């Protein structure tokens, strides 16, 4: 698996493409460096939607982010889904694409939601096998994203050991979701900054930032509010030490126009020494 590295273009700070933000993104495109799409929204797209994608691609580097490849499934990946994903990635020709370190299918059932993996050597081996299968179809570098977990499963590795073992086994880079890291620390205990210091930061190529919501005592990664101060602090740490090439703000609900998101992109750039140096 080819890994996106410091030789990969520094794309900058961008947004996740969502329909309620579409007109704002296109009107304010000078203030947005890169766009990430949810790949699944375009896999079975009709002509009208593909025309929208082509318009987007005319203005931005577009990074596909997949949800349902289920790289952690002991049953393996879905070949039909993989073929559609490969066609989309070929159409976009991105510098990399990404998928979650999770499973969404098992026992012949589709869950439709990202489920955590047990932090075991067996799970690392399954991810390694599935990523190798994917790499035979998609040559573009793949980044693996840490997911937020509403519950944990038994396993002998901690989060840092597990992520380290996975990137070693797969050769992939990391898409580090800082909101997920923060949510896991709040929900399951631990300190996100301590964990961050133990992660293989040299493999972090992309970041996700978002705001969550408290629901019955659980911090849910809802992508529905402004980025929390604790997540900004994590971003400053990572951007100072990791070869990050792109950082994406995710917003899926409670849209208040494009303005607040553009302001958050400016805050992100202000915390990013490498980006400031490159643009000085």
């Amino acid at each position, binding site marked *: 698996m080819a890994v996106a590295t410091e030789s990969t273009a520094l794309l900058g700070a961008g947004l996740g493409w969502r329909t309620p933000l579409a007109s704002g993104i296109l009107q304010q495109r000078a203030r947005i460096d890169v766009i990430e799409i949810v790949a699944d929204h375009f896999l*079975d*797209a*009709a*002509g*009208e939607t*593909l025309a929208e994608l082509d318009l987007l691609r005319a203005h931005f580097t577009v990074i596909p982010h997949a949800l349902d490849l289920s790289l*952690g*499934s*002991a*049953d393996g990946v879905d070949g039909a889904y993989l073929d559609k994903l490969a066609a989309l990635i070929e159409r976009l020709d991105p510098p990399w694409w990404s998928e979650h370190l999770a*499973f969404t*299918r*098992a*026992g*012949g*059932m*589709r*869950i*439709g*939601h990202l*489920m955590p993996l*047990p932090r*075991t*050597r*067996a*799970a690392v081996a*399954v991810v390694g096998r599935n990523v190798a299968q994917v790499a035979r179809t998609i040559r573009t570098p793949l980044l693996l994203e840490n997911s937020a*977990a*509403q*519950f*944990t*499963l*038994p*396993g*002998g590795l901690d989060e840092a050991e597990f992520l380290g073992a996975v990137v070693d086994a797969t050769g992939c880079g990391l898409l580090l979701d800082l909101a997920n890291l923060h949510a896991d620390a709040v929900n399951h205990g631990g300190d996100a900054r301590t964990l961050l210091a133990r992660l293989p930061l040299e493999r972090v190529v992309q970041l996700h930032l978002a705001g969550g919501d408290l*629901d*019955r005592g*659980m911090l*849910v990664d809802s992508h529905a509010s402004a980025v929390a101060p604790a997540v900004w602090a994590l971003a400053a740490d990572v951007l100072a030490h990791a070869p990050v090439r792109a950082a994406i703000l995710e917003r899926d*609900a409670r849209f208040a126009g494009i303005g607040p998101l553009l302001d958050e992109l400016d805050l992100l750039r202000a915390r990013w020494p490498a980006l400031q140096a490159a643009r000085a």
Partner: protein
Amino acid sequence: MSAAEPDLAALQAQLARALVDPAALAALTARPPAWLAGDPARVRGIAFAARSLVAKRRAEALPLLGAVAAALGPPLRARFEAFAATHAPAAGQPRSDALRLLATLVTDPTLPAWLRALARWQAGLVAAARPGPFLRLEHFAWRVDRQRGADPPDPGVLIAAWWRWSRRGRLHHVRLMPPRRRLPPSDLDPLNLPRGTRP
């Protein structure tokens, strides 16, 4: 795999079933497997995830129901939860949830006929948004295309057609509303008697 580690495929299959089927979740909670036993926080977390999954499906599917959602109002939330309890997520989400829920509304005899017709109209719109060759022709006795809010639509003949000739082709949509024929007075007379001969 060490002796302490559960079999990954079996664990994932048990978990998947519990997340999409309330009966399987209850069974998992009542008779926890070894990997779950003795950890109430983990059990609570799985139940939370199951509820979150239904909420996510509902939040994604209901916007696709258009005027049907407005016509049904708040009871639609409970109706979706009952639907989700018996219909596991399928490929093509959230469109597949929207279409399957609309199918249950179309055939629900407890709903007024106009609402069943509205669900059939909306199902045409949702199905037509899928890629691939498509042809659908529907006939309605209400102007469901004008439906807003919870009141029944106006009566009136509506013929709707949707078609797409190729996988990536453009969608075409036509509505035909045959004008109501103004009938001569004799046609309105139930006895159809010539003028001047009525009793």
